[in-house]
């Protein structure tokens, strides 16, 4: 089995923690060899019985992970409706009661997820989103579209003026690149709402793109929301 290795101190420390092989042995071996050989040919570091068992389990784990990951790649999550994306982000953000998190799903041209990232995490009522970070990820994974999502720790799923302004800012940045912002899902506990479904999603760029960090406060959002939505959406 041929493995492409990226050496890092974190990897050495983790290998030490997971297998019990002393750091000095790992580092000494890695000076002139591929450290992954330790997993494939453990006798190179003369492990004891317990260490050998841990190495064996770690190898099995890596193989098992690889198979499942390949399986996932073949069956990527595909969004065909706001309900799909809402349920997806609700599963990721619904349990966040003590902090606000902003996530972005980067999609290919069939609306399948290439990857999903947390791009901001703040306190209970505020987070800062750096558009530059989202742009960097979008360029690197060559996505065709995005779905934004964040949670309201207070439980409301009403989109606010700030939510809409933030969405517009992201649209302004990605519109010239032909990367569509398909939706902005707002999660509040076990519920979610779709700004696209409610007609609050901007269709195109209104302003010149601005890359300054965007600060939004959950307090303001929930107090100042003036959209004509009196009740939480049940989706």
């Amino acid at each position, binding site marked *: 089995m041929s493995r492409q290795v990226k050496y*890092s101190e974190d*990897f050495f420390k983790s290998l030490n923690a*997971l297998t019990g092989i002393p750091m000095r042995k790992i580092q000494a071996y890695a000076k002139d060899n591929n450290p*992954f050989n330790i997993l494939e040919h453990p006798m190179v570091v003369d492990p004891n019985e317990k260490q050998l068992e841990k190495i064996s389990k770690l190898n099995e784990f*890596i193989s098992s992970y690889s198979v*499942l*990951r390949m*399986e996932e790649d073949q069956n990527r999550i595909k969004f065909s409706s706001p309900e799909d994306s809402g349920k997806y982000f609700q599963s990721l953000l619904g349990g966040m009661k003590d902090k606000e998190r902003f996530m972005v799903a980067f999609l290919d041209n069939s609306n399948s997820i290439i990857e*999903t*990232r947390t791009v901001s995490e703040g306190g209970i009522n505020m987070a800062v989103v750096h558009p530059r970070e989202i742009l960097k990820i979008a360029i690197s994974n060559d996505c065709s579209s995005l779905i934004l999502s964040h949670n309201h720790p207070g439980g409301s799923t009403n989109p606010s003026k700030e939510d809409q302004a933030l969405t517009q800012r992201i649209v302004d940045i990605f519109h010239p690149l032909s990367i569509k912002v398909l939706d902005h899902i707002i999660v509040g506990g076990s519920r979610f709402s779709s700004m696209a479904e409610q007609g609050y999603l901007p269709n195109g760029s209104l302003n010149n793109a601005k890359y300054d960090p965007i600060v939004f406060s959950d307090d303001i959002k929930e107090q100042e929301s003036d959209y004509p939505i009196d009740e939480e959406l049940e989706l």
Partner: protein
Amino acid sequence: MSNITKVTKVSDDFLALITWLTKPNDEEIRVIKGIVKNEGVRALFINITSLQVSNELKSKLIDLKNVIIAFDGDISEGGE
């Protein structure tokens, strides 16, 4: 054996192995199982810090993540 059966078997193996390697408690096993079943194995290693599990388990999961990153360098997440 159908593909679904194969994947289920691999998924069970994966859960057994991660349990052996990280020693989660019963509630943490439930959390891990739920994420793997509903979101997939990659999702488990994305945003480890937000999982509702002990710091000790998070640390072990980060160790596994570091090995996975060394293995194939792609886990859809920049790091912890």
